[in-house]
């Protein structure tokens, strides 16, 4: 496994030994070092090579393999540290939207979500507390939000449904570590293409990612209010 230098720009397409219908795979979600280039904590460093290898190893017996490019090549990591937080969020949002848009079959979007679900770090049982419940979802989703020492919002999430976990995973990829203002600015319509299984817009009760996004924004606002 080769890992790229942390500070190279991530190409949107990459070579892989087998690829499915030209769809784009997001880089390993948790390997982004944060924008301040002097601030690589040991946690970030540890993430990169090891998690890279770990997360992209698929069971060859899984039927989903045929769809997912198998990574023996470069694990995509860092983004250009010169990007600001707002650029980052917008950039990640574009990638997510582009990725899901590139999957025309609804079932492929489901499968992609399940793939991302598997990448979501598990939360302890203590996180599954009532005050962490995201209301309005037919599945159970728990969300934790806090501000880190740099005033960025950190999110952690869990769900009893794999598809919901997938949504959470994508949302966390986009918004974890962002500035609070950026979190609040995201609009549901921007994510309409993530409507896995829902033909139409966001207004159904079952629209988990919409509810989770709203919850993330509400918690962010509350955190901001609390910190002032």
């Amino acid at each position, binding site marked *: 496994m080769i890992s790229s230098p942390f500070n190279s720009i991530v190409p949107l397409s990459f070579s892989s030994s087998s690829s499915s219908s030209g769809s784009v795979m997001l880089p390993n979600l948790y390997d982004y070092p944060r924008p301040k280039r002097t601030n690589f904590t040991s946690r970030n460093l540890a993430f990169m090579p090891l998690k890279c290898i770990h997360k992209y190893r698929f069971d060859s*017996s*899984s*039927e989903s393999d045929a769809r997912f490019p198998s990574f023996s090549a470069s694990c995509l990591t860092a983004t250009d540290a010169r990007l600001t937080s707002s650029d980052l969020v917008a950039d990640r949002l574009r990638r997510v939207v582009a990725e899901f848009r590139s999957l025309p079959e609804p*079932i492929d979007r*489901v499968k992609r979500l399940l793939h991302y679900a598997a990448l979501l770090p598990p939360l302890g049982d203590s996180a599954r507390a009532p005050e962490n419940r995201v209301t309005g979802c*037919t599945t159970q989703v728990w969300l934790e939000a806090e501000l880190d020492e740099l005033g960025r919002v950190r999110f952690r999430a869990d769900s*009893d449904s*794999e598809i*919901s976990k997938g949504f959470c995973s994508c949302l966390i990829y986009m918004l974890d570590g962002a500035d609070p203002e950026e979190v609040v600015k995201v609009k549901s319509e921007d994510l309409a293409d993530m409507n896995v299984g829902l033909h139409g817009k966001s207004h159904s009760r079952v629209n988990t990612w919409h509810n989770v996004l709203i919850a993330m924004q509400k918690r962010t606002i509350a955190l901001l209010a609390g910190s002032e």
Partner: protein
Amino acid sequence: MPSTFLQLCCSAMETLAPKLPSFKVLNPSSSSSSSYCSTTRSSSSLRAGLRRPFSLSISASAVREGDPAVGSVSLGHVTRTDFPILHQEVNGSKLVYLDNAATSQKPTAVLKALQNYYEAYNSNVHRGIHFLSSKATDAYELARKKVAAFINASESTEIVFTRNATEAINLVAYSWGMSTLKPEDEVILTIAEHHSAIVPWQLVAQKTGAVLKFVNLDETESPDIEKLRQMISRKTKIVVVHHVSNVLASVLPIEEIVVWAHDVGAKVLVDACQSVPHMAVNVQDLDADFLVASSHKMCGPTGMGFLYGKRELLSAMPPFLGGGEMISDVFLDHSTYAEPPSRFEAGTPAIGEAIGLGAAIDYLSGIGMQKIHEYELELAKYLYENLLSVPNIRIYGPVPSGNTNRAALCSFNVENIHPTDIATFLDQQHGVAIRSGHHCAQPLHRYLGVNASARASLHFYNTKEDVDDFVRALNDTVSFFNSFK
């Protein structure tokens, strides 16, 4: 010519005359044709006592006097062609619609009736004297008569049209409940009730000081009838129960419950949403005080439902919604009110939709509720048995056995897979439509210890092939999710 005679009898019984001849067919107690499939075999079966050989595969959209059909084509196969919506693909697979407990599909006859109303004689009812208005009024009132005949009410004035069963229950809660219930009066329900049967009573209990008491399930996972009986006391003013559970598929012995309730002077409100569409329901036999159902679950349009209430009860009830139609005279400082049912039908009703419901009743009666019920019993058994083959599945409600029949629906969970994930995959990959969630029965799910369940529910236009497709797809779904772990 005995067969013709019997067919005439059949059509007489099924025809929607304003007053049904109370026709008793000599009926040896064959189990499937006796009662409404309550868990106790009721010997007071009546008009629905058609034996299978005579009810044959009459073409649903045709008239009752067709030739006895031949062959073993199922009712599902015969009627499917009447439902245009079923013949489509979703997400690249043919649609397999198994969410009938949520809402049923509509046959062409109903669609045509609706269209015809709006095209030919749409007009406000009970008011005008011109031709169209008169025609609309007649059709609207005829629909009321059809509903009355369908459930064997004594008079059509005992049928109040509402927006749906939920509104009908609210009507009873606000009109009868608010004027009758006193502090410490008891309202008895089961924990398996639909939210629409629970919440209106919570609201009224808050205002009146009445107390809600709930019956739990027994070891067969149906409401504990013995406990229900014990709970009924002099303090009980009304018992609110479902006839058929939309989650457990269990059937309650309404006739017995009514006897126990009446013994203490309590009323009974029957939520018949999941029974009226699927079996013959006879309010004289049940002796229920109130009964509610929704049109959209019985092949009729949405926006329409009804309350059946005994005449003497409705006459004594104050208005629910105020406005036009329900008044007699209006002065500035007070008004006098109309007799039931108008007293409870404020404003312009859903005229076309009532007529559509009438057409649905015509359609269902043309097949025969007994026939529908027998077929669905078969389907229920087939569904349950085949579902059991899915690994790690847990189906809620009683196990079907000799004298315990289930409705043709199964709520279930598969270990370690969220029901919403199952439903999503079934839809996306296989075009199978089921429901997941709490099915408007959160207290029940809490009692069962789960957050949500998946539910497949059938109607007479489903076939065993639908069940096969579903179970195959479900097995595929389970394998898929297990492979991700």
